[in-house]
Each structure stands twice: as structure tokens, then as C-alpha cells.
């Protein structure tokens, strides 16, 4: 029964993928969209059933299908593990997945390759589910690379534009750098404990060692790649080249949180590697701040959201670094709600403006698109940490944890939060308030999107509002639910004292401050960001993302390409010349030797006589 349920869970999206691949075109757009959505919805229902079961019994379900890879001291099964963590993850993966599928039916309706889009989305959900429910690291790795592949396919969905293809390629390759880290981590763990199975591993891991720390570090590199942390974050902003639902699903809500999932899953490993935890916290904090600063000045609506995602992911890693896994998970969930909502809202805006993404050409959309506006407003409030929206609780918990462990990182995180509030409301003011700054024709066509788009928005907005209820300070359902997973009883149950309330107040004030600055700058003073050429000074540095892409290009990509050219033009020809050299030398010897053959019989005979004499004398003397 459990096996069947698990298989149903995994294979329904895969079936959807197959149907859309082979018959999608003939089925027509609506049908293929419906099939895609249904496939994910069925998974969602199955997840609900499973969730119900696990929540009541409190026990995980393990399903083993068959042996997959045999290595001398490792036996790797293709198996699934459905426990609290994975089912929780599945809930929002399939839940938000279904909503986004639904949304896409309308959003992608004009695209000729809609069936392909849905097949990729279904494939993505399939791999994401595999990632989440795999019972060992290698099955996770299938999903891990699989979602990377789908991300590649979907970023480059409009494949006629080579820039988009570049972005897709970049995403895949950067992910692969992380994947190598993950693989190495697996190797180390595999050779240390002879297993990659979570359950076995949990009992096997007992004490920290340098090697274990190295493994944890390698695994974290993997997480960096997938979850867009320094130094591997640059692909995520570029990944916005894909259609907006993709950005919402893959690059905000689900795939990018895979790194956090993995770290949470292996919490028992990371708990023993304290140094690595520090590294994680520091990198998370820095990423969070760096991305937030870049987000301050971006003018592309999706870019702002992308940097915001990176920044929020940084905050989650900050929490992970302190061992507060449930806090990170909590933020993953609330973030999934409001960030998906924001992306879908921005998609709705872009859809309404026929592809315009530059905020400088928007404005005043509040009246034309009220539902979009209100849902996005709610989500912005949530992400800014305004009290009683979901983001308030989760972000506050993170900062609280940070405060308890390290004041500097707390300060960094807080500054990032203030910035978040600022750029989100900058986005809101520029997009929805004041006058419309686009062309007359666009203005003419302004309209609220259809119900297939607005319904998911509304649902997500509701979730973004109330999502915080699952883990109220002092009375956290989530912590209790997840507690079987963690070895250390840490983080969750804060005693709500004066410090905590003060911190909460500071956080709220910070958020409000950010909103206020945005209000003054973009509403009161009615500033509109300068066009690209006129950006100078610090803004220019921020606007150009600290030139990190350029630095990578110059330090890594260019040298490799140069090396490739050098190898091709010089080393290859050099070795070839060396090999040919043998032939040449032989030829030369023959050519020179040819000259001895003068053709003069006299000479031959002379030499013959000398030789004869020599041989005869030798034989004679040798006696």
C-alpha cells in the first residue's frame, strides 16, 4: 500500500510528462495543460493522504524498490523515505506546483510550445519529488541533477534567443560545480560509514572528525550551487530568462530550497561539523546582504525578486548555520508562499504589459489590476516582516537565533531585512502607484488577468498571510512536528522574554523604516530610477552586481577558453609533430642513407673486398 502510494506520488507527474511529450501537441493546449495540472494535483492529494498518516502515526515510511548501484562496500537502493520532513516538503512542492501549473495554463496559452512547457514542468515535479523522498543521498542526487536539467530546459524555454540559452547553460554548469562538491561529499561519507542511506547514516555518525567536516563542507558546496549562495549564486538572477511561472516554481519556491532540504536532511552530519556550520552561517549572512544591496537598484521587476530570493536563501542558511533547522524550514515554507505569490504577481503584471519587465515603464497599475496589486501587497508586507504576516514570524525567528549566537551576523541579517523591505516597496511603488509610464498602446490594453491567474494569486496571498500560524513563537506546531528528525533539541522553543520582544520590535521597526524610505523616495518625491547610462557611483557598482559576473568571466571562463585554444593550437600540434617526428626522422635517415648507394659498382666491390678481408681476418685471428 505504502509502496503503491509512493509510486503513485512519483509516477503521476512522470506520466503527465510522458503524455505531454508524446501526445501533447495533438491534444491541444488546454488539454495538455489540464493533464499537466492534474498530474501534479494528484500528487498533491497523495501527499495529503501521506501527511495525514504520518502526522497521526509520527512514523516515517520507508519503501525500497530494488538495488541500483553496487559498490564493494556500499549497496545503494532505489528507495524512498517518507517522513515528516519529506512530506512537509512535498506538501508545498506539489501544492504550490499545482497552483503554478494552473496559473501557467492561462499564462502560457499564447505559446506554441505549451505542451512542451507542461511536460518540462511535470518532469520537474517528478524530479523534485524524487529529490525529496529519496531514501539515500544518491537518489537525492538523481532528483538533484534532474531538477537542474529541468531548470536548464525551462530557462532556455525560448530557445531562439541565445542569451536565454546562455543563461540556461550557466545555470546548469554552476549547478554542476556544486554537484561535484555534493558527489565528493558523498564519496567521503560513503567511504567513512559505508552507507549513503539516511537512516543508517544517522545511527552510524557518532562523532566529528576533520574528514567529516570536509564531507560536510563538500555537501555545503553542493547546497551553494543549488541554493544560489556565494560564490555560486550568479546563475539565479540570469535564470529569470525563463517564463515567469518557472521563476516562481523552480527559482523561488522549490528547487532553490533543495540545498536547505539537503542540509536539514543531514542535520546530524552538520551538527558534528561545527566549523562548517560557522562557514554556512557566515556565507548565508554575506549572501543575504550582498544580494540585498544589489536588489536595491535593479530595475527589472524579476531581477529584484531574484536577488530578493538569493537574499532570503542567505537568511535561511544563516539559520542552518546555527543549527536551527526548523527555523530554516519554517522560512522556506513562508518564503515559498510569498515569493511564489510575488513572482506570479509580477508575471501577471508582465502578462498585462505584454512582456515589459522594466519597472521604469510601469506605474499606476493599482487600478487596472487590483487583485494582482492586493495579493502582491500582502506578499510584500509578508517578506518585509510586518507583524502578523507569515514572513514576520519566520524572519524574526531567524534573527532571534542569530542574536543568540552571534551579534555581528545578527546585525548583517537585520540590515539585509531592512533593505528587503526597502526594495520590495520600491518595487510596489514603482509598479502600482502614480501614473503609468509605458506607451499609450500598453495603457490601452491594461487589464486584470484572467481567473486562472488570479485564483492561484489569491490562494498564495492567503497562505502568505496565515502561513506563520504553523510556528507561532512559544507554541510551535512545526517544531513539534519536525522534532523526531533532529538529534539536538535546539533553537525552537525560545523563552519569550524581554530580549525577544525587544528584538521583535527592532525587526518590525527596521522593516517599517525600509518601507518608509521607499515611500519617501518613490511616492512622495516621485523619483523614477535613472536610465542605464546615467547610473553612476555606488549605484552603478550595485546596478552592475559588483561586476561579479565579469570577474568570473575574466578569472575562470576566459582562462579556460584561452587554455583550450592554446591546447588546440599549440599542444595538440606539438604532440602531433612529435609523433610525426618519428616518421620524419626515419625518412631522413633513409634519405641520407640513400646517398651511400652511389650506384658505382666499383665502390661496392671495394667495400665488399674490405669487408671480406675484415671478416676473414677476424675469423682467422679469432681462432
Amino acid at each position, binding site marked *: 500500500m505504502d509502496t503503491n502510494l509512493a509510486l503513485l506520488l512519483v509516477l503521476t507527474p512522470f506520466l503527465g510528462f510522458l503524455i505531454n511529450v508524446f501526445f501533447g501537441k495533438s491534444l491541444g493546449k488546454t488539454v495538455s495543460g489540464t493533464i499537466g495540472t492534474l498530474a501534479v494535483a494528484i500528487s498533491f492529494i497523495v501527499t495529503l493522504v501521506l501527511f495525514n498518516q504520518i502526522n497521526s502515526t509520527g512514523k516515517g515510511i520507508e519503501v525500497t524498490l530494488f538495488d541500483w*548501484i*553496487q559498490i564493494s562496500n556500499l549497496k545503494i537502493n532505489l528507495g524512498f523515505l517518507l517522513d515528516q520532513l519529506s512530506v512537509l516538503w512535498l506538501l508545498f512542492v506539489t501544492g504550490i506546483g499545482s497552483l503554478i501549473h494552473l496559473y501557467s495554463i492561462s499564462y502560457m496559452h499564447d505559446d506554441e510550445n505549451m505542451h512542451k512547457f507542461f511536460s518540462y514542468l511535470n518532469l520537474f515535479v517528478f524530479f523534485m519529488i524524487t529529490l525529496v523522498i529519496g531514501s539515500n543521498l544518491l537518489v537525492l542526487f*538523481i532528483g*538533484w541533477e534532474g531538477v537542474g536539467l529541468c531548470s536548464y530546459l525551462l530557462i532556455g524555454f525560448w530557445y531562439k534567443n541565445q542569451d536565454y540559452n546562455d543563461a540556461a547553460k550557466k545555470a546548469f554548469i554552476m549547478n554542476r560545480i556544486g554537484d561535484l562538491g555534493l558527489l*565528493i561529499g558523498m564519496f567521503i561519507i560513503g567511504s567513512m560509514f559505508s552507507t549513503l542511506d539516511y537512516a543508517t547514516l544517522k545511527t552510524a555518525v557518532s562523532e566529528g572528525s576533520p574528514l567529516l567536516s570536509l564531507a560536510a563542507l563538500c555537501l555545503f558546496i553542493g547546497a551553494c550551487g543549488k541554493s544560489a549562495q556565494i560564490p555560486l549564486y550568479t546563475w539565479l538572477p540570469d535564470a529569470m530568462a525563463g517564463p515567469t511561472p518557472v521563476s516562481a516554481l523552480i527559482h523561488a519556491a522549490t528547487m532553490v530550497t533543495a540545498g536547505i532540504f539537503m542540509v536539514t536532511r543531514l542535520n546530524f552530519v552538520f551538527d558534528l561539523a561545527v566549523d562548517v556550520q560557522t562557514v554556512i552561517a557566515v556565507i548565508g549572512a554575506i549572501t543575504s546582504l550582498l544580494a540585498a544591496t544589489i536588489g536595491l537598484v535593479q530595475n527589472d521587476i524579476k531581477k529584484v525578486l531574484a536577488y530578493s530570493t538569493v537574499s532570503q536563501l542567505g537568511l535561511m542558511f544563516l539559520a542552518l548555520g546555527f543549527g536551527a533547522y526548523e527555523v530554516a524550514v519554517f522560512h522556506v515554507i513562508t518564503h515559498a508562499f510569498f515569493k511564489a505569490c510575488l513572482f506570479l504577481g509580477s508575471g501577471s503584471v508582465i502578462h498585462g504589459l505584454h512582456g515589459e519587465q522594466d519597472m521604469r515603464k510601469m506605474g499606476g497599475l493599482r487600478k487596472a489590476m487590483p487583485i494582482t496589486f492586493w495579493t502582491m501587497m500582502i506578499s510584500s508586507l509578508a517578506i518585509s516582516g510586518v507583524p502578523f504576516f507569515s514572513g514576520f514570524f519566520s524572519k524574526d525567528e531567524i534573527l532571534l537565533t542569530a542574536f543568540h549566537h552571534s551579534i555581528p551576523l545578527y546585525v548583517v541579517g537585520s540590515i539585509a531585512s531592512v533593505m528587503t523591505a526597502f526594495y520590495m516597496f520600491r518595487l510596489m511603488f514603482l509598479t502600482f502607484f502614480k501614473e503609468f509610464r509605458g506607451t499609450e498602446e500598453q495603457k490601452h490594453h491594461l487589464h486584470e488577468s484572467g481567473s486562472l491567474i488570479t485564483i492561484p494569486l489569491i490562494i498564495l496571498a492567503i497562505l502568505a498571510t496565515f502561513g506563520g500560524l504553523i510556528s507561532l513563537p512559544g507554541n510551535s506546531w512545526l517544531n513539534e512536528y519536525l522534532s523526531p528528525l533532529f538529534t539536538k533539541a535546539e533553537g525552537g522553543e525560545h523563552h519569550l522574554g524581554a530580549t525577544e520582544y525587544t528584538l521583535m520590535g527592532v525587526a518590525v521597526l527596521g522593516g517599517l523604516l525600509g518601507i518608509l524610505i521607499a515611500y519617501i523616495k518613490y511616492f512622495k518625491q516621485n523619483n523614477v530610477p535613472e536610465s542605464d547610462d546615467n547610473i553612476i557611483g555606488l549605484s552603478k557598482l550595485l546596478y552592475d552586481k559588483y561586476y561579479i559576473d565579469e570577474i568570473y568571466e575574466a578569472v575562470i571562463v576566459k582562462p579556460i577558453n584561452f587554455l583550450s585554444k592554446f591546447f588546440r593550437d599549440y599542444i*595538440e600540434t606539438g604532440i602531433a609533430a612529435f609523433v610525426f617526428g618519428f616518421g620524419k626522422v626515419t625518412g631522413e635517415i633513409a634519405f641520407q642513407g640513400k646517398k651511400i648507394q652511389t650506384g658505382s659498382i666499383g665502390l661496392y666491390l671495394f667495400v665488399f673486398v674490405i669487408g671480406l678481408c675484415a671478416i676473414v681476418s677476424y675469423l682467422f685471428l679469432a681462432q
Partner: protein
Amino acid sequence: MNVSTILIILLIGAFATYLSGDKLASKVALLFSLAALGCSILLLNNYNAGENISFIANWINKPTIVLALNADGLGIAMVLLTLALTPIIIFSSFGNEYKNAKSFYALILFMAFAMAGTFLAADGLLYYVFWELALVPIYFIALIWGNGDAEERRKAVVKFFIYTLAGSLFMLTAFIYLYQKTGSFLLEKLYAAELSSNEQLWIFLAFFLAYAIKIPIIPFHTWQANVYQKAPTVGTMLLSGIMLKMGLYSVLRWQLPIAPLAAKEYLNIFISLGIAGVIYGSIVALKQKDLKKLLAYSSLAHVGLIAAGSYTLTLDGLRGAVLQMIAHGFVVVGLFFAAEVIFRRFETREISEMGGIRIQSPKFTSMFLILVLASVALPSTFNFVGEFTVLYSLSQINIWFAVLGGTTIILGAYYMLKMFQQVMLGEANSKTFADVSLNEGISFAVIIAVLLFFGFYPKPITDLITPSLETILSVINKN
């Protein structure tokens, strides 16, 4: 029935193909190759049932050379690879017109015969004969039916021929030396030979030269890219899909067990060479302008990893190497076939002249993409199983080997996706590109099916090869 049946079928097939005339040749060849495949599957069945399917007969008395064909799991796996790829290769050529087709297809079957013989032979000299015999058909195939400027082609092919022949000569010397020592060419006698570590080193090096050229391991690879480019695609497939594996297989079968001390002592050097090939091949592949050359360098990178895995002398390394050999055989044949499909339509192999194919041919794009992904070892493809096992075994020797060898997954993705982007994506090309025909589709589908099936369920192959690899390892570790 024993394994000699396969060889006889192939040999008869070669003659029958030659006699059947140009029109029928391709079909007759396909028929015989399928018959050989069927026969080998039957034999596999018998083998699994515990039947002895080896074959032994006297051939020459002085010096003692025995017609010994030994079929253990490893040999059968390699023969199956050969015989599964041969029909695919023959079938994939159905879209092309070859002049003097009867000789062409007869040569293909003859090559399959020689290669299968190499994988089965258990007598040093018999093995050597098969090894060299395989060189003859590919020489003619590349020379006569190749493409590009005839003079340059001749140069490349002759270089290849002499180069590999020269390498093999050292192997022959080693065999003769071993014969002096043991009085026999038989595999088990050679395994049992008592050799000092100095002798082993020389024998190891002599074998290494032959295999390093065939595989090829850098810096012995210079023949490869040019021959791959100049040979007709069928020839390239035979070379890269099967013939490379002869070298890799021989490392496992002959080199390591006969000279284990040398292998152990210089383990790090040879692994490093393999890994250097991985990195070097990947980097050179980045900037190739010719599609087939790019694939050739990618092949160089992959076989480097396989070789590195073989030289680890661990069960994982050997097993991963064999798995990767089989996977690579299929994927590289698929990729070269894709290059051929493009060539049939665009009449070019220059990457810069392609682009925008995806718009016109979604099916081909999907198939090509799957092959590209398999080539970069995406999990759930067969290649991942092999690559993971090999990298794992490398990590057991030294974690840095795994890190450096693992760069293949980054660099591999880089050059393959770059190539895919330039070839397939972008704005529509001015030239029309018809989507894959039924014949082409079948070839692709078979290859992809194999790759995906074994990607999830490699157990049959693992179970088949593991006992013989354990035997080899026990010989290696005998003292």
C-alpha cells in the same frame, strides 16, 4: 554450442555480404549481425545457466598456439556490446549510399568478427592476431569511404595505422618474452608466470604502449581526432564505440593480471595519466570547430576516466570501468550518429554553420539532448552509474583524484551544452532540416532505451561481470 559459433556466423556473414551484391549487402549484413546478436544472447542464457561455452582447439604445435576462446562474464559483456552495436551501426548507415557497398558491409562484419575475437581470445598470440586483424577493415573503411580531402585523409589514416601497429609490436614482444618464460601463450599460464618486478615493469610498459595508443591515453591520442573526423561515420562509430574498448578491455584482461606488481607500484602515475586525459580532453573539446572532432575529444576525456578507473586495481574501479565502457560505447555511437544525421541534411560538420535545428525538428532535438545528457552522465542514465562507480573508486585511492576526475562533470557539461546550444538552438537556420526518419528514429530509440534502462537497473550487467572481475583481482593480488 559455444562462443566460436558467434565468430563463425560473423565470418560467414562477411563472405555472404560480399557475395550478395551491392544492393542487398546492407540487408544481408544486418541480418547476419542480428543473427550473431541473437546467438550471443542465447549463449548468455546458457552461460547464466552454468553451461560451459568456452572453446578450445589446437592450432599450431610449435610454437604452441591454441585456438582458445574463453567466455567469462567480462568477455561476454564485451562481445554483447560489440554485437549489439554492430546492427545499430549497420542500420544507422541505411540512409547513406555507399559505392561498392558489398565490400563496405563485408568489412564491417569482418571487423565485428575480429573485435569479438579479441574479446574472447584466451591465447596470447590468437588474441594478438585478432587485435591486429581488427585494424585492417577499419583502415580500408576510413581510407576508401572517408570524407574530406583524399590526401589529408590518407595521411591521417596511414598515421593511425602505423601508429597503432607500432604500438602493438611492443605487445607482441612482450608476448614472445612471456612465451620464452612460460612456454605457452595461454592466458592462465601467463597469469601464473613468475616474473620479477623488473620484468613486470617492462612487460607492463610494452602492453601500456599498445593500449595507450589504442585507447587512447594522452599523449598518445594524436591520431584520434583526425581519424574520427576523416573516417565515414560508420567507421567512427566502430572505432569509438567498440575498438577503443578493445584497449580498455585488454588492460583489464591482459595488462593488469600479468604484471600486477608494476601496476601496483606505479598506480598513481597511470591514474594521473588517465585523469590528465580527462581534463585535457575536456578543455580541448571546448574550442573545436568540427562536430566530430569535438566528440572525439569528449571521447578522449571519457576513456581517460575509464582508464583511471581500471588502474585503481579495486573492484569498484574495474567494475565502474566496464560499466562505463559499455555506456560510453552506446552513447558515443548515438552522438556520432546524431552528427551524421545533421550531416545528411546540412552537408557540413562545422559547428558554426549549424544552429536553429530545434525549431525544425523537435524529435531529433529531444533524442540528441538525451544523448548529450547521457554523455555528461546525468543520473538515471547508464553513464552515471559507471562514472559514479569510477569516481568513487578514485576517491578511495586519493580524494584529489576524484576531485580532478570529477571536473569532467563540469567541463563535460560545459562543452557539450555549448555545442548543443550552437548546433541546435537559436534562430531558425536558412537551410531546411527534416526531422528524423523512421530508420534513424529506431536507431536512436534503441540506444536511448538501453541507456535509460541500465541507468536505473544496471544489476544484470553488474552481476554478469563481477565474478570475472573478482577472478582478475584475485590474480592481481595473488602474492
